[in-house]
């Protein structure tokens, strides 16, 4: 008996060890094969050009190309421009990190020495500079006959620079400087040989006359809605863009007696600095449909953008510039909402950094579009005082108890006396489920809106409520992934998931 047991144990051990050894051998062979398969992709031997994303895009516009030397060729001009901007870019990075990296590619031997000296001094003093140039207006002075030397004057270079001592911000500065630059073509790179600051007479800057009074009038009578399609919330212009459905939604909004829409442009979705034509086309179709129904559209830019870093100021500016220029003449446009709830980024990004970016962007958009107002969608009435001097009307969001709304609104009114205040987002979720202990209901939503609408009518506050539909899906980026937060987000609409009008629909219907 014992013997038999022992025999079975041995047998089991033998079979188990056989299996284990086999498994190890197979795993070993697999590891060797997968090791041999790693390495460069075969296509890399073709040295195909790697598509690069735009990393530095200040506005640059060449003035006169007349020069006593050789006539400038378009292609060469592009190469000079590319390398000149890269020279600024690597210099910005070098001063940020106090590192020589990359300078040798865009500055000649004698010029880079001067940069190195600055970097050495700055790392000794433990100061860093975070800077960017925003605008360049170069004019060609000279281009030599064999195409290897160029002198030009870069007029009114607008620069923004933050000085850090260690990690703390010491000083912020914006200046306009003109330079005369000599660049040499050396082994395929245009490199800066001389960079001199020069005096240039101030350009007659046409101070753009802004004509926004008539639209500001309109702002005072906004009865609006924050709009996302039901099938693709937070992704209006994605691959599921359905013009017919949007038209249908707009009919409902019209039926409700509303006159204004707020829509959102996602920064990355629209292609960052190089805005995709397809997206502009979709936006244009939406704007046209809104125009047909005589809606005004408030376009919120930079949704899901949250960096604000000086290093991508130029990229965000090109993004906004493209969109603003494309739609500034659209009759349905109400104005530009630069950013949705930027104050929520104060903590993670630094208040100063966010505000600097917003301020700069506000002034840019005012330049590009002189006929439409600019606003920022602050997340609370309290934070709406930020940059109140810069915006044309003040927008804020309010999701707290209706009882204290008027108080908060009046408090803001005492701080901002001369500009319209718009309640740009407010609403109440009818969510009734496990995560709020089954305490919500459509009736609560109705009660909320009845109270709020009462306040709004009484205080004559322009409003845009959140939102038309209940949503099946809410992206994580909106409310995170915690169910007690995100579940609520699904039920702010006045039409439910099955397309039925909720009770609140009648309350919000302005024609009643």
């Amino acid at each position, binding site marked *: 008996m014992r013997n038999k047991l022992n025999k079975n144990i041995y047998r089991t051990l033998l079979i188990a060890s056989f299996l284990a050894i086999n498994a190890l051998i197979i795993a070993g062979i697999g590891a060797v094969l997968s090791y041999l398969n790693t390495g460069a992709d075969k296509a890399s031997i073709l040295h195909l050009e790697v598509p690069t994303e735009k990393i530095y895009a200040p506005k640059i516009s060449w003035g006169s190309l007349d020069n006593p030397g050789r006539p400038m060729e378009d292609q060469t001009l592009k190469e000079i421009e590319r390398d000149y901007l890269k020279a600024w870019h690597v210099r910005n990075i070098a001063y940020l990190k106090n590192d020589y990296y990359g300078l040798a590619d865009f500055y000649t031997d004698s010029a880079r020495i001067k940069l190195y000296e600055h970097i050495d001094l700055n790392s000794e003093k433990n100061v860093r500079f975070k800077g960017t140039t925003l605008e360049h207006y170069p004019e060609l002075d000279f281009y030599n*006959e064999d195409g290897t030397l160029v002198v030009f004057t870069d007029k009114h270079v607008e620069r923004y620079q933050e000085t850090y001592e260690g990690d703390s911000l010491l000083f912020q500065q914006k200046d306009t*400087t003109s330079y005369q630059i000599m660049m040499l073509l050396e082994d395929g790179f245009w490199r800066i040989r001389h960079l001199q600051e020069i005096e240039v007479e101030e350009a007659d800057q046409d101070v753009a006359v802004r004509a926004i009074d008539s639209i500001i009038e309109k702002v005072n009578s906004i009865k609006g809605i924050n709009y996302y399609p039901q099938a693709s919330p937070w992704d209006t212009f994605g691959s599921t863009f359905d013009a017919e459905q949007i038209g249908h939604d707009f009919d409902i909004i019209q039926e409700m007696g509303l006159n204004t829409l707020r829509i959102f442009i996602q920064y990355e979705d629209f292609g960052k600095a190089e805005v995709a034509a397809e997206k502009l086309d979709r936006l244009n179709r939406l704007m046209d449909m809104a125009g047909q129904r005589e809606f005004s559209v408030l376009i919120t830019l930079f949704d899901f953008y949250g960096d604000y870093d000086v290093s991508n100021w130029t990229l965000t500016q090109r993004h906004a510039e493209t969109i603003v220029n494309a739609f500034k003449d659209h009759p349905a446009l109400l104005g530009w909402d630069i950013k949705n709830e930027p104050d929520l980024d104060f903590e993670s990004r630094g208040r100063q950094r966010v505000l600097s970016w917003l301020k700069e962007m506000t002034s840019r958009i005012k330049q590009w579009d002189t006929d439409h107002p600019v606003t920022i969608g602050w997340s609370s009435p309290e934070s709406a005082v930020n940059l109140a001097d810069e915006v044309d009307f003040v927008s804020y969001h309010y999701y707290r108890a209706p009882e204290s709304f008027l108080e908060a609104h009046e408090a803001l009114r005492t701080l901002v006396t001369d500009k319209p205040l718009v309640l740009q987002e407010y609403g109440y979720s009818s969510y009734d489920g496990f995560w709020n202990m089954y305490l919500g209901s459509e009736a609560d939503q109705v009660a909320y809106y009845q109270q709020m609408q009462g306040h709004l009518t009484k205080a004559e506050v322009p409003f845009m409520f959140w939102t038309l539909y209940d949503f099946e899906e809410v992206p994580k980026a909106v409310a995170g992934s915690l169910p007690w937060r995100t579940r609520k987000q699904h039920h702010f609409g006045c039409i439910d998931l099955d397309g039925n009008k909720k009770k609140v629909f009648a309350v919000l219907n302005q024609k009643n």
Partner: protein
Amino acid sequence: MKRTYFLLLMVFLLSCADKQEGASSAANFDYRLVTTNSIYKADDLITLKFEGKGGADLKLMLTNAFGSSVIFSTGSEEELQFTIPKNFSRKAGPCHWVLLANGYEVTQGSFEIAPKTNLKPSVETYFGPRSITAGDRDYSMLVHITTDPFDNVYPEGTVVQFKSQFLNSINEYMIPSKDLISWKNINATRKSGRILVNTTYQGIDSKELTTIVFPTLAETFGIEADRNHNFADGNQIMKLRSTIIRDVYNNIVSDGTMVNYIIKNSKGAILKTMAPTINGMSTANILHPSEKEDWRIKAYVTGAAESNELSIGFETAIEDYEVNFSADNRRITVGPLRSFMKQLVPDGILVQLEIYDQSGQYLETVKVSSIKGFGIIDLPKEYYPDKGYHLVCKAVGITKEFDLVFDEK
């Protein structure tokens, strides 16, 4: 001084509270610059002094074209003293400063640094293109930059001497600088050769730079033919020679200029040979034809020039030949081929036989080269079964026709 330089200090009152707790505002600091000099030479010792009150912990931010830095006071609270570091004091141009107290601007200003022109300057020259063509249109460009020992460009209007030499003539020009540089176009000469240039500023000479003036486009030229005899023997080589080819200024064209000799024969076909020039002359070769010909020859330098037209005739070298058939008719022997002195022709005369069937339907052409005076053609049974054929034999421009029957029963 007309210049744009505005500073925006962005102060957000509440925002700074958490970052810079206890910071006193700039209003508590009251300093003014006491240094009166605002114009310096590069590498001067520059010290900025401020008088006032507020605290010793003030910083001076400096900015020039190449970048910014922050330096600290070495003086007392009442008299702040900042020594400008060399990387700022050596760079000509404006240098801007901002006096900072706890991140606030107290006061700001700038001073000007001029290039250090009383030390030995350095010169840089750029010359190009390094090859140009003779005549009145082309030129090279000589660019000169004068810098001081700290690599600052000399001020506008610095007059530089430019010199250029060609053969016996040396020219000098005085050129004032503008937009950082002085420059001069060095025009091509009508004669080909080398132009040497250099520049001089205050006894500092640049190195010698060269551009080569190449001859310009060729002009009309002549050609001649040179041959051993005028028989069309398909064997001798005829030389075609050009005269010395020159450009409009009488310069011999560059070596290697390709000359194309285009020959039109009496059937209208075009033959071609070519040769590059050496010392202006080109010599090309071409084989004699193997039958009587009249050639018209013209040479071209493509896109530039052409020659006279030569007419060259070739006499028949082979008057006639025999064609013999073997017993079974399947081996055809053409020859002997005898040339103008009754000598057997050198190997390689083309003999071709066109084969038709009885009804005149074309079947094939067989080509052979003559060997030791004979061209031999076999018509094997496998390809040409027994029946009647019509043959056309062509060689040295003479055509002979036969009808024959293969019959081996």
